[in-house]
């Protein structure tokens, strides 16, 4: 078996040994199940009853983004200690005293953590999807596809935190990555609001003039969320600049991984 796959499997197994993993998953599912009451309520807008399916659809979209935001936090916490913990408990010596390339070790750890978080997020999104289906009989097409697309965001966060943790204290590396996400949230969120139908119809000149270059090339984490949202809503996606957020993030992930492998290759164990 390839060393990358082997180390990924070890990473998955080691994380899943912790009871806290199952407690967190259980609590998250319970939290999601508590929102199912929203679908039963009788809601009126301008004196008209809103169909439960419409309510469920809107609530599910909000929960979709809440789950993603929660996952960013969880992924940061999981990733920030990968290298320092391995150094402290002897795992890094276990792998690198054998004929394992350093890039195999790094890639194995990153993909293992990503696979775990991807499955975790998918289970939560699947819970929402199934709840809506059971309660209202509506299938939100594109919901699970959107979940898989958003997993690229998780990989970006893992790569960022791991890279920064090589030369920053663990917590600072997670905090720094959150800062990057927050700036993107303001930049991309602002762009989405300006280009929304409501703002465009109210202020037709709002979208005149292109965004600054740094905003176009900035990591498009929030924009990918918006793209996933557009898949669920089956609405138009207003992209910023010529690069699709998937391409933008893929390039960033590639670049960060190359830098991380280069740095780790020279690191003293």
């Amino acid at each position, binding site marked *: *078996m390839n*060393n990358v796959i*082997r180390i990924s499997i*070890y990473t998955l197994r*080691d994380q899943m*040994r912790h009871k806290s993993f199952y407690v967190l998953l259980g609590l998250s599912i319970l939290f999601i199940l508590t929102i199912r009451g929203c679908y039963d309520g009788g809601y009126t807008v301008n004196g008209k009853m809103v169909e439960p399916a419409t309510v469920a659809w809107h609530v599910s979209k909000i929960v979709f983004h809440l789950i993603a935001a929660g996952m960013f936090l969880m992924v940061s916490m999981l990733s920030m200690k990968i290298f320092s913990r391995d150094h*402290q*408990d*002897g*795992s890094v*010596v*276990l*792998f*690198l*005293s*054998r*004929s*394992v*390339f350093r890039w195999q070790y790094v890639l194995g750890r990153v993909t293992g953590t990503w696979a775990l978080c991807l499955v975790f997020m998918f289970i939560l999104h699947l819970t929402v999807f199934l709840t809506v289906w059971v309660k209202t009989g509506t299938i939100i097409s594109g919901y699970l596809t959107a979940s898989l697309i958003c997993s690229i965001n998780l990989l970006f966060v893992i790569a960022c935190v791991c890279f920064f943790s090589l030369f920053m204290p663990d917590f600072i590396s997670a905090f720094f990555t959150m800062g990057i996400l927050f700036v993107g949230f303001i930049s991309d969120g602002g762009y989405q609001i300006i280009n929304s139908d409501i703002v465009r119809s109210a202020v037709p000149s709002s979208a005149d003039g292109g965004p600054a270059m740094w905003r176009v090339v900035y990591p498009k984490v929030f924009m990918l969320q918006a793209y996933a949202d557009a898949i669920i809503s089956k609405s138009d996606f207003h992209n910023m600049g010529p690069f699709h957020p998937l391409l933008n993030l893929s390039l960033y992930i590639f670049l960060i991984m190359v830098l991380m492998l280069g740095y780790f290759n*020279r690191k*003293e*164990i």
Partner: protein
Amino acid sequence: MIILDSVTKKFGAFAAVDNVSYTIRKGESFALLGPNGAGKTTIVRMLLDFIKPSSGAITINGRSTSEPESRQHIGYIAEQHMIPPFLSGFEYLLRHASLIGLSGQDAVKEVDRVLEIVAMQGPQRKKSATYSRGMQQRIGLGAALLGQPRLLILDEPITGLDPIGIRDVRKILENLRGQGVTVILNSHLLSEVEKTCETAAILYKGKILIKDTITAIVKDHETLEDVFVRFIEQEHE
């Protein structure tokens, strides 16, 4: 064959290893001796590519240490060997076995074999967090012995071991010598080195003071300890 060719390792301006050259032949039992901070562990870490030399080259059987293949048949035990606390000794050894290419029943059989050698068959399924220092060291030695290694690098292997453990390690090393396994032993216990190794080098401040067979280094009515102290004191003066 292991060749160190003009190897220097600097940490800032401090040279932990200073222009060291020597060759260890296949099947040789070689001891690296020296006081604390002499550069012994630095050399071991360079052999495993945990750190890179500032200059010079190290090859193991013709391969540079920067190639992971050079570690294919190496068994290594670190000073203060650490085992991830969530793994049992058995799981830890199974991971090592998997990394050297063993799988399924072959891996389990090999792990059982080394567990017997290092006398850890009882507590092998307990989490390593419950192990004593000596038990961790025994499991570490077991990991080093997996898969019939051709080169054993032992960095203070008897740290934390009781007298029975020390005797067991000595027996294991004697047995390996008989099988033609090359051994690099880094130890402070000179009496043990005298019993188990045939050649030795004394390091001081990153430089090799002497490298020869132990019988050539130790003169009549002297012990290795006497020679070691004499060399270090000469350097002090």
